[in-house]
Each structure stands twice: as C-alpha cells, then as structure tokens.
C-alpha cells in the first residue's frame, strides 16, 4: 500500500460513529464499577494519614473479629512478592516498615457491607512514628532525609553530544531560563474500581478499569504467587484513564481479597480516594540554556531536568526518557548536554499522564524558542522553520527523520492562519496569539515490543477481532474495526470487537504512548492476512485451482465464474473441526540500541503538532480567557477524522486546564489538598474555546495503512503556546504553570 492509494479507501478516512456509542448514550454500557456480582463482598482500603513514617505496629486481631468481616489483610498476608510497579516492582502492595506518602495502603478489608468494612478499619491498631515529609525536589536532592535507603534520586543520567561550551563560545546569543510545571491529576470521571472473583477451576478473574490487562495479570501473578495462566484480567469498558490507570490501581488489591475469601469482591475508590491515592503527572523543574546564531539557528542546548517521582517510581524512569527526548524538540541541535534526574519525594506517586514527560519538557524548550525569537526579533513560526529537521536528516539522537514533511506543512499552515489578525483586545482586555510545536514518539522507542492480536471468522457472518489495548474512550475499538474492514473489504458492521480481555485475546500490550493504532492496527492486519491466506488455500482446493489463481475481493474468493464467501469457508472448516481463529504478532520497528544514557530513546515514528492559541487577559483581574485554538497536526493517515480530531480537542482542553487552573497540591506536612472536583477544578463547557483541528496530509509506511497515532499530541504544546499568547498580550513571561491571575497582576 502506498501513498497513491490514499483516496481509494472504503472504510478509512471516514468519520463513522463509534461502535459502542448507542449503548453509551442509552446508559446500557455496563462499566466495571456498575457490576455488583451476586453475593459480593465490599472491599475497603485502610490508608495512611501521615506522609512519611516508620511503621511500629499494625494489629488487625480486633478488626478480624468484627461483625461481617471476611478478611483483613496486611503485608504479612501477601502470598507472593509485596511489590508492583510498571518498570520496577518497588511499590509495596501493602505498606511494610515505612509509609512514604499520605494515602499509602496499610490494610485491606473485605466485608458483607461497606459500613462493616469501615467500622472494622477503625479497629485496626496502627502506630506510626512520623518522619519529616520531603515535598520539594531540591530538598529531596539535598538528602537530609532519606525516603529510600538507597537515597532520594531514583534515576540520574547524562545524555550528550558534541561540545556545548565551544558552541556557546561561538554563539550570538545564549539564554538560560528555568521553567516549572505542576503535578496534574487525571480526573477521569469514573474513579478507579472494579470487581474480582475466583471461578470453579480456581482462575482469579479481575475486571477493573485499566490500560494494560496483560501487565496487570503479570503484576497480580507475582503478588499472589500463582501462575499468570490462573489469572484473567478485563479492562473494557473504562470510564477515562489518560495514563492514570496504566499502572495497577485496584487490580492487585481486588485479586488478593477474592483469592483469600473465594468470594466475589467489589472495590471502587471514591473520588476523594482517587484524589489521595490515585496517580498524577510528574511535576518538573527544568533549567535550559540554549545557544543560537544571529539567524536564530540552534547551536547547542543544555538542560537540567528534574522530575518529581513522588514516593515510588511507577513509570518514572521512562517518563524521564521522554522528557530527555522532548527537550531538543523537533530541531537540529548540533550539540547538547542533558542532565536528568528522577527524584523521590513524599508527594503520592507520579505516573503516566497523556504526553508522559513530553508536556513538561515541551513547556521548557518551546517557551525558550519563543523567548529566543523575541530576543532576536524573528517571527516565532519562522524561527521554528529555520530549525526543524527535514526528511532524511539525522535527528539529535541519531534517528533519521523519515517523514517530518508534515511538520513543515503544519508550520506553514500556522503561519498563514487568520488567527494572528484576530488578536484585538480592547480596554482592560489585552489579547495575544502564541505558537508552539510538539513532537512525540509513538510507542516504546528502542524497547522491544511484539504486540499480538487475533481474528476469528464466524460462519454466521461476522469477523471477530481481538486485541488488548483498552478502549477507555479514545475510540480504538472503532478505529481498529475500520482497519479490519478495510483489510477484509467487508463492511464495518460485519466486524465485532472483543477488547482488553486476556481470556479472549493474545497480548497486544497497553493503551499508552499513542501506540494502539500502530500496535493493534498492525497486528490485526497481519492476523487478517494470516486468515485470508489459510482461507485462500481452502477456497482454491474447493475450486480445484491453485491458490495463486484465486482472487479475493469484498469478503469472497473467486475463481473464473465461481465464488465463495469467507463465511462459507469458515463453515466448512468448522465442520472439519479446524480452528477459525488466526493470530499474528507484529514486530514494532525500532532502532536496535538506545542512545547512551537512555532506556528507550529514540523512537522511529513521531507525531507532530503545531498549536496556535489566542487568549485575552483581563489586565485588572489577571484572568486568562482562551478564545480560540488552532491545531495543525501530522498523525499519518487518518483512520477516523472525527474521532482523531476529538482526541486533539480533548487533549488541548486538558492542556489548557494544566496551563491555567489545574495544580495538585500538598500541605506542608504532605497531605493532598485538592482531591475532588470541588477543590481541583477542571475546565467546564464555559471554558471551552473555539477549536479548529487540521491534519496535514501524511503517510507513514511503518504504520497500518500509513497511520501513526494521535492520543497524546494535543496536550503537549498548549502550555507554551498559551504562555506566549499571554506574553504577547501583557509583556509578562510566565515560566511556571499554571498561569494563575496572581502571577499576572
């Protein structure tokens, strides 16, 4: 398939409605927190109300004897390893010896009613010896109080190329700035939750909101000390995730309680519990020093990146990698020196959040580009056009740019946009337009990634497509069904998707890193090819022809004037007792080795975006009002334009929240302060700006039908673009998000 066939697709480039939308608007889709299994117990988690402490005692005897109590578990009751974590299994499933954040789980309870569970929790005797809470990364790096015995730096790495001091000596201008971004909460509307049960053959079923069923399964198996084959995980449907359900939330606790009691258990966090114990985005402090020549061409880039990992690592090490990869932008950077730290504090646990380290670094480099442009008197779009890498060039991390033509076109579209002329405030309202570009790798970079998927041809007239990347709203069920329909040349109505269930599907991996289109899409296309090649032989044999003489079109095989449908062939195979299920594994293209000092840099496939933000600032009140956002993106071939642009728009508004009103905060003693929608305010319909999203024409041979990914690109450049708009309106540079009124007046 090449770019020339772009216009010829039957089921791609089409905005069909989501396959599950009717169920969703009728309230018929049962989320996993909507299922109350017959005879279920209520799960409850006793949590620490101290941020940092030594555990002296946790006694459960009295609680165990309380009415209606079926189980009270502490770390002593964990059959396997007391640890989990997507990268390093260092997060205690139940606290042991130390408590490192407010909300850390101390004990689990299963009871006949929630009232009984809570009453029993009060009876658990907990004695903690408080330790000073370390909430600031600089304080943590001073190591006066050690959060972990090994020290407070979870990961430190230096990544470099060329001679930065030489480049700076020859530069026309060197700017150094420090930028900060806050912790951000995901605030999905369905808090973390689900249920679990053990079936008659001893298999532990865990059905809970999540993003990575096979990783959940592995993590549960380590903790229960049983084979992964004895565990099933289902994650669909999930009411929003954005990275916050990528690492385990309720899954392991659910499995422990069901495994111990042999009864169905429901465990669903309240909003406040999600606010306290759920994950959040890493806060960042980035000092960046950038050297340019007279024309604004980048000569070198130095950065000290410090990310706040919170009490444990979760995805921290790879988030740091994405921050490193992002700090050079999509630019030609001849020499650089990146000094990067992932630091422990007592601030909850930072984990994946849409963009995964990219919005943090993007705010630094893109704000820097805007400051450089202003200093040099160069148009901010022009300075980027002078620096972006073109196709065939080698990027700063040794990766050859395969298709950045999309970014250049996106920048040209941004330059000629009418938005620049629409900034016209009056009176106390000052208006400005800001620009920023984004780059984000698709998938796991140099880390090996072998997603598998399956298809089954059902003689009754359906093709069942199975993959495990959960659809928590992104629309991947629909997009992958469109890819399957295109490959099979049959209507989407004949495709049936089973999503995110380890009982039905091989391991396609997680929904993360904007990877689902690439991984599930490619694996499904390959599984379909496998199915068609087997069915072709069957068809040929029935025609008395060789398979090379048989044509395939529109769900049927043809030979001379005869034809047979895939469904008829499936019926015949079934009669012969043959399998109708076909699996395939896709090998995600990658560079063989990571750049020295990194775990997964660089990627082979990148998405690009250009954001233009027009904002008004009330000079008296300091209030920022975002009027409109234009977004030009290169996401490869677009499977479903409506769903894809929805991903960008949703990401943009999360980015506007991040840049203006959202900031997850802790008290001086490490207690989270804004843990619900009353205190952690997110954008509402009134805050929604006019939005215009355009995808530039693009096709990436590595992706299925030229598609790349889209989920994360929208959020990434919003902060820097808005900060520039505010600067244009007021002359004030805000270098720490969010841009609150008190920073402007």
């Amino acid at each position, binding site marked *: 398939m090449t770019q020339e066939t772009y216009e010829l697709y039957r089921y791609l480039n089409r*905005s069909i*409605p*989501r396959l*599950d*939308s*009717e169920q*969703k*608007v*009728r*309230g*018929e*889709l*049962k*989320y996993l927190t*909507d*299922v*109350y299994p017959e005879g279920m117990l209520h799960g409850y988690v006793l949590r620490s109300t101290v941020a940092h402490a030594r555990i002296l005692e946790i006694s459960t005897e009295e609680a165990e004897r309380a009415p209606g109590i079926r189980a009270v578990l502490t770390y002593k009751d964990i059959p396997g390893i007391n640890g989990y974590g997507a990268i390093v299994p260092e997060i205690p499933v139940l606290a042991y010896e130390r408590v490192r954040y407010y909300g850390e789980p101390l004990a689990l309870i299963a009871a006949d009613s929630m009232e009984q569970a809570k009453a029993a929790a009060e009876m658990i005797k907990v004695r903690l010896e408080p330790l000073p809470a370390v909430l600031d990364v600089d304080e943590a790096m001073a190591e006066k109080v050690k959060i972990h015995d090994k020290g407070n730096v979870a990961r430190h790495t230096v990544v470099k190329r060329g001679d930065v001091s030489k480049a700076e000596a020859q530069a026309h201008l060197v700017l150094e700035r420090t930028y900060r971004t806050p912790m951000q909460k*995901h*605030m*999905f*509307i*369905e*808090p973390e939750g689900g249920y679990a049960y053990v079936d008659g053959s001893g298999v532990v079923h865990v059905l809970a909101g999540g993003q990575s069923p096979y990783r959940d399964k592995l993590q549960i198996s380590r903790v229960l000390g049983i084979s992964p084959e004895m565990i099933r995980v289902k994650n669909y*449907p*999930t*009411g*929003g*995730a*954005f990275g916050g359900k990528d690492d385990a939330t309720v899954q392991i606790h659910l499995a422990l309680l069901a495994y111990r009691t042999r009864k169905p258990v429901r465990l669903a966090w*309240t*909003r406040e519990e999600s606010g306290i114990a759920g994950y959040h985005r890493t806060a960042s402090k980035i000092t960046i020093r950038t050297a340019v020549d007279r024309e604004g061409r980048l000569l070198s880039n130095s950065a000290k990146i410090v990310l706040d990992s919170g009490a444990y690592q979760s995805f921290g090490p790879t988030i740091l990698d994405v921050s490193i990869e992002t700090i050079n932008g999509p630019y030609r950077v001849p020499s650089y020196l990146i000094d990067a730290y992932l630091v422990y504090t007592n601030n909850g646990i930072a984990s994946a959040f849409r963009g995964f380290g990219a919005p943090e670094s993007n705010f630094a480099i893109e704000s820097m580009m805007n400051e450089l442009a202003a200093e040099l008197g160069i148009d901010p779009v022009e300075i980027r056009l002078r620096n972006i890498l073109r196709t065939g060039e080698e990027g700063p991390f040794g990766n050859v740019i395969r298709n950045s033509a999309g970014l250049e076109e996106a920048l040209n579209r941004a330059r000629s946009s009418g938005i620049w002329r629409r900034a016209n405030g009056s009176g106390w309202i000052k208006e400005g337009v800001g620009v920023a570009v984004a780059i984000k790798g698709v998938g796991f970079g140099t880390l090996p990634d072998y997603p598998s998927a399956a298809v089954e041809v059902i003689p009754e007239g359906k093709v069942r497509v199975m993959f495990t990347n959960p659809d*928590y*709203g*992104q*629309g991947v069920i629909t997009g992958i069904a469109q890819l399957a329909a295109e490959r099979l040349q049959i209507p989407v109505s004949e495709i049936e998707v089973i999503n995110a269930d380890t009982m039905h599907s091989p391991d396609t991996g997680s929904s993360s890193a904007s990877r689902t289109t690439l991984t599930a899409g490619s694996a499904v296309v390959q599984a379909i090819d496998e199915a068609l090649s087997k069915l072709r032989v069957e068809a040929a044999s029935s025609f008395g022809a060789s398979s090379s003489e048989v044509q395939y079109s529109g769900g049927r095989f043809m030979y001379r004037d005869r034809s047979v449908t895939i469904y008829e062939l499936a019926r015949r195979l079934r009669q012969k007792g043959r399998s109708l299920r076909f699996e395939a594994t896709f090998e995600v293209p990658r560079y063989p080795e990571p750049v020295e000092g990194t775990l997964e840099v660089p990627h082979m496939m990148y998405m690009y975006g250009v954001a233009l933000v027009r904002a008004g600032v009330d000079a008296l009140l300091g209030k920022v009002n975002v009027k409109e956002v234009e977004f030009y993106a290169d996401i490869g071939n677009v499977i479903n334009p*409506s*769903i894809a*642009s*929805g991903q960008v*728009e*949703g*990401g*943009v*508004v*999360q980015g506007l929240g991040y840049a203006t009103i959202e900031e997850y905060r802790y008290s001086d003693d490490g207690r989270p302060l804004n843990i*619900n*929608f*009353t205190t952690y305010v*997110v*954008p*509402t*319909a*009134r*805050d*929604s*700006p*006019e*939005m215009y999203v355009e995808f530039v024409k693009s096709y990436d041979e590595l992706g299925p039908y030229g598609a790349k990914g889209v989920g994360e690109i929208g959020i990434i450049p919003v902060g820097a673009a808005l900060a520039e708009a505010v600067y244009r309106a007021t002359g004030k540079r805000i270098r720490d998000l969010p841009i609150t009124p008190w920073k402007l007046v």
Partner: protein
Amino acid sequence: MKVTININGKDYSADVEPRMTLVDFIRDVAGLKGTHVGCETGHCGACSVLIDGRPVKSCLMLAVQANGKRITTIEGIGKDGGPNEVQMALSSSKALQCAFCSTGFVVVGTWALEENGELTEDVIKESFIGNVCRCTGYEPIIKALRGVRKND
C-alpha cells in the same frame, strides 16, 4: 425508613437508612446502573436525573427526600423505544469518548431541549454548567447539540 419512589414509571419501595442518597437508591435498590457516580459532591453531574421534569444531582439528595416523587433516569429517556434527539446528536459524532459522563449530559440535555425547544450555544453552555467531561473538551458536545430542535 420506608420510601416509595417512582422511577421511569415504576414504583420502587424499600426500607432504607435515612442517610442513603438518592443515587444509591437508584443504583442499589432499583438496580439501574446507567446513573453514574463520579464525585458525590455535586460537581461532576454524572449522576444527573430528572425529578418531576427538572434536573437534579442525585448524589446530593437523600432517598427519603425523593419519597413519592417521579424520577426519570437515563433508562427512562428515549423516544418510542429508540434514542431521542439529544441521544442521536451525541452518538452520531465525537461528542462522547469514555461516556461515563454522557448519561448525565443526555439527561440534562433532554431537559434543556424540553425547556427551550431548541438548543442554542448559550442554552447549551448554560445548561451544562454542572456537568464535567474530561475527555472531549466540550466543543464537540456543543457542536453536536447546537441547533437540535424538538420534533414531535
């Protein structure tokens, strides 16, 4: 306390604790799970239902306060067994993603259409002031509903 609440035309009676919220009655007693709980503080709007035709956040009301009232939940919304105008508009585009909030948007949108006969941008923004969506960024919802008219 003994309460009887009419939900979607059917009476549900139960002896409940005075502290039970209406949303718990709807989900646990009546077993209607389309009404979702997103916050329990009245901010997210996922639990919106209609009481005597007006939108109410069912997490902020006690079941005993709803005694004798007529309630419409998402399960009771629709037209001739099919989706109504608001449901059609929200399902035919990108106006929903994870959709955990969508049932609340449908309930409030249905009320707004009933009240106004047509959904203008101002009506939409005003009506959904108490409904949070974290996925869509709202504009897709506003665009999908803008211009929807009541057609009996």
